[in-house]
């Protein structure tokens, strides 16, 4: 019984995560993610 409940927690949490992702896409957050990712991250590569 305890393990069954745990599996439900995982599935519910995954659904919450998915919903948050969709909300983030709706808010336009992927534009900011993309804007950072398509430029060389000078901090990441040790240039500053």
């Amino acid at each position, binding site marked *: 019984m305890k393990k069954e409940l745990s599996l439900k*927690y995982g599935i519910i*949490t995954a659904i919450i*995560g998915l919903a948050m992702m969709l909300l983030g896409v709706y808010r336009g957050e992927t534009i900011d993610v993309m804007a*950072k990712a398509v430029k060389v991250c000078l*901090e990441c590569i040790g240039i500053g």
Partner: protein
Amino acid sequence: MDNKNKKRKSQEAPRHLFQFIWAVITNSFVAGFLQGKIYTGKLKNLCVPGLNCYSCPGALGSCPIGSLQSMLGSRNYKFTFYVSGFLIFVGAIFGRFVCGWLCPFGLVQDILHKIPFPKKIKTFKADKLLRKLKYLILAVFVILLPMVIVDVTGQGDPWFCKYICPAGMLQGGLPLTVLNEGLRSAIGFLYTWKFLILAVTVLLSIVIYRPFCKYICPLGAIYSFFNKISVFRLRYDEEKCVDCGKCSRVCKMNVNPTKAPDSGECIRCGLCEKNCPTGALHCNWKR
């Protein structure tokens, strides 16, 4: 002892092959390596699950930890539903399976640990305490500092990426500075500092199994929260177990699967399952 090591190496071969194929697929922008540039296409909207610097010339996706910091330090957002949701979704499905199978930097450490060394260290006195360090790094360098320390425009730095992450140095810093003269001319103290961190990580990985994953990685810290509830998990059948202790002895993350099959330190490599004589352990999606 030699036959045991050979057997374990062959048991790990399928996982390493999977890790390698995944690393190649997610870093397959070959033009980046040839021309010293990075991929700028639409796939960079998507995060990859493991620690994969988006400044790697071959990287097709975004690093989730890098993206998290850039969003937390952003002028426009102080909380990111997209990146947080991604981490929650991946964590809830896979837990630290990502660490064991989908992280290129994990693969690098796995390979380095196979280099022969007279005295490999399985554990030491400070090991348990040092495992907490990754949670401190997550809280301070990934979340707090990017949000709080901002410039005049309201933008924060990615503190973990800038001052700690050796994956960024290996995957991005080294190839880009080799291939790109402009970047090479801008090398300074920070580059030296990060190169030193990478060198220490590489050397430690030969002696200790996955030191970065155990003690430093904030992404592993995040996924560890989900190990107890993840859909894919290690399952332990107490009735089949004969308490031989083999699973605990083969575990390179120093987990005892019979006591804590859902331990936050378990990277779901499956080595315990393969060595269990009675089939009491299974890594899978359901019982």
